[in-house]
């Protein structure tokens, strides 16, 4: 019992112990923050990669892609029981324009199948209009779109009011004036989009009427009228809600189409209801590269999607798979002289595969990927025309290998550096305990005089060191958890007030700094700190235990 009593008394009454606890707390805090953020970063990459591409990706080395993919998917789903779903995917590049503006930029154009896409990725989770729907489509019901647009208009209006309210006398700073201008511009486009949906049927009818008139004028050979009607048609066409095969889902983050307020609120400028124009070079079929003709199509934006991966969201546009196949010359090719003779089947550039959750990590996933690879190899042997170049089967981790390995190496390095720093805490505890043991030499003599054993005396100092480690690590862990959980508000606050921005969204790909703390991380860091505390107190404890009582009592 004396061990506990004296350990507690020394903890409370020895100011030196607080310094040791502080040292341990700082080390635990740093370790927890670094490990949590970097582990969270790797986890985010995993979630993002799986969310985007599924667990396993089959990809063609050539732009020609993989043909007969539906049969390949059926075969994979049949032969590999671990597979939950698979979906074809096309990825190519294009130029995005917004009619009526001078906006243009290069983007990645992804061809996807909806709602099938939701079976292999978390695509549906990041949608704006179809948020919460398990079966997203390129043809969501009109009232839902209008409701979302109305909500968006109200939200933008609220932001505008809040900015104006901040300066009631109209004395806006140049930054605020710029923001007000952008918000008004966004409201204008949002209103236009809402009207386009509201009047969709009337506009469609108006368009069809003009088309009929054009036909009539054409037949009558009235060129002046024809010219006038075609100009009229072009005007009306811009307000049309195009059919489902001509609809697109924007990545939420394409510069110029949306922006963030200083408070981090997303404001859509060009969004659902607006028309965009995509131009791309069709490279899906063997063509003469001296004679490539770009293709251009208009699309109505029907939704937008945030994957939380800034580098993806800032440059991707999703369109229906079949539409992109046609634009990219990846659709089925028939013989020129015989429309029933298929020369080449429709193709996709990738197949994304979802694996059952219990098998979707580590070695189990690799095993599943090998099984899929075997099926693909057999399939390609059976169908030699399905792919004209090599086809790779990779897990998400293999595809992101360079990035994930780099971050994991960074994490290991961090742990190593922090481990070395933490060794300082061990030395600190050792020095402090040594000083305490020297200061308490007479007490040790007294304890031995009243019958305390060597082990008991050592136990006091080991428990003392362990308690310093435990209290310090708990304080550090609580502080670390609080910091990590609130790392984004803290970071934003620092950026706002001190222009000190560590997390650059462009560099780190993600919108938010990972802010999850894993329980086992906390447990092993706290356990290590306690062990370090005991380790630091080991030598002083042994020295105390080996003190001869007579020497200790005579100690001056």
């Amino acid at each position, binding site marked *: 019992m*004396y061990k506990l009593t004296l350990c507690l*008394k020394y903890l409370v009454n020895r100011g030196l112990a607080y310094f040791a606890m502080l040292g341990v707390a700082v080390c635990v805090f740093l370790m927890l923050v670094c490990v949590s953020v970097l582990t969270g970063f790797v986890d985010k990459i995993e979630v993002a990669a799986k969310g985007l591409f599924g667990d396993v990706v089959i990809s063609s080395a050539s732009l020609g892609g993989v043909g007969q993919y539906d049969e390949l998917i059926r075969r994979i789903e049949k032969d590999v029981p671990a597979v939950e779903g698979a979906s074809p995917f096309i990825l190519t590049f294009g130029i995005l324009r917004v009619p009526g503006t001078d906006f243009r930029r290069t983007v990645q154009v992804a061809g996807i199948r909806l709602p099938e896409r939701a079976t292999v990725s978390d695509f549906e989770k990041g949608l704006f209009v179809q948020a919460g729907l398990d079966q997203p489509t390129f043809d969501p019901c009109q009232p839902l779109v209008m409701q979302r647009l109305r909500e968006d208009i109200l939200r933008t209006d609220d932001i505008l009011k809040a900015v104006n309210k901040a300066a009631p006398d109209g004395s806006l700073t140049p930054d605020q004036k710029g923001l007000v201008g952008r918000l008004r511009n966004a409201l204008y486009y949002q209103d236009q989009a809402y009207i386009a949906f509201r009047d969709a049927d009337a506009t469609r009818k108006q368009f069809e009427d003009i088309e009929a008139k054009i036909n009539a004028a054409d037949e009558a050979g009235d060129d002046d009228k024809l010219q006038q009607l075609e100009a009229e048609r072009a005007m009306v066409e811009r307000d049309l809600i195009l059919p489902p095969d001509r609809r697109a889902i924007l990545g939420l983050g394409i510069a110029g189409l949306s922006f963030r307020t200083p408070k981090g609120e997303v404001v859509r400028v060009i969004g659902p209801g607006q028309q965009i124009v995509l131009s791309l070079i069709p490279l899906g079929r063997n063509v003469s590269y001296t004679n490539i003709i770009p293709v251009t199509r208009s699309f109505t934006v029907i939704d937008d999607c945030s994957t939380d991966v800034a580098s993806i969201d800032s440059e991707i546009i999703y369109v229906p798979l079949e539409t992109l196949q046609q634009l990219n010359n990846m659709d089925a090719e028939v013989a020129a002289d015989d429309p029933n003779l298929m020369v080449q089947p429709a193709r996709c550039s990738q197949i994304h595969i979802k694996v059952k959750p219990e098998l979707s990590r580590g070695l189990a996933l690799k095993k599943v990927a090998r099984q899929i690879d075997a099926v693909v190899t057999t399939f390609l042997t059976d169908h030699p025309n399905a792919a004209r170049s090599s086809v790779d089967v990779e897990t998400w981790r293999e595809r992101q290998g360079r990035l994930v390995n780099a971050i994991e190496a960074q994490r290991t390095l961090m742990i190593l550096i922090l481990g070395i720093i933490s060794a300082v805490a061990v030395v600190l505890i050792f020095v402090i305990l040594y000083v305490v043991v020297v200061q308490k030499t007479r007490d040790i003599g*007294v304890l*031995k005089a009243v019958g305390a054993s060597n082990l008991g005396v050592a136990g006091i100092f080991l428990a003392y060191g362990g308690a310093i480690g435990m209290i310090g690590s708990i304080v550090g862990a609580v502080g670390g958890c609080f910091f990590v959980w609130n790392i984004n508000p803290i970071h934003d606050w620092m950026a706002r007030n001190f222009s000190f921005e560590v997390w650059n969204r462009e560099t780190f790909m993600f919108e938010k700094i990972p802010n999850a703390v894993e329980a086992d991380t906390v447990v092993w860091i706290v356990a290590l700190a306690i062990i370090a505390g005991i380790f630091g107190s080991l030598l002083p404890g042994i020295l105390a235990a080996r003190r001869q009582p*007579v020497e200790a009592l005579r100690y001056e």
Partner: protein
Amino acid sequence: MSSPAPGIEVHGLHKSYKLGRTHLHVLQGVSFSIQSKEFVAVVGASGSGKSTLLHLVGLLDRMDKGTVKLDGVDVATLSRGKRNRMRCHDVGFVFQFYHLLPELSVLENALLPAKVDESVLGWIRHRGEHRAAAIEMLERVGLSERMKHRPKELSGGERQRVAIARALMNRPKFLLADEPTGNLDSRTGRQILQVLRTASQDIGQTVVMVTHDVALAAEADRVLHLRDGKLTK
């Protein structure tokens, strides 16, 4: 009628210390016996080996040669654990410089031997009894009003009383006092001696008190004189 069994028997006790290259023969064949419940004073000049003798008898140190028997038990044959237990149960020490633990209150200092003797579970079970015993000891030495004070808030005499209460806590058979009044003025020293004597009589202890104060030693039942490591009478 047979004489009472000796509580402490010392025979041919030798102890030397190495100081650099020289050996200091502090005790050179000391032999004596002390009856149970006897109050014996050991007097001698500084460096005569009084404290060393007390440490050997109290199992705080090991002799080079000779035997020490407490209640007939040869302490040299005891294992380290048994020596610890004997120090805890059978021997109480009072030191010249009190050696109270500054972090503990008066009551906690008095309770220390009981805490050394008990495990955490044992302490939970017997805490009340131990506290009552410690309070009784502190009342016996006249410190019932100062139980919550820290040693630094007490006078020298009061500190020594706490040390006596601590030495008596486990009701040991042997009370060994090393210059218990050496750090006190003569009036306080006499009071302390009186406290020591009364308390030990009440409990029925064998007391060995080392002192260089011949007048104080005269209060004992018997006086042993130690000079240059040998008993002279």
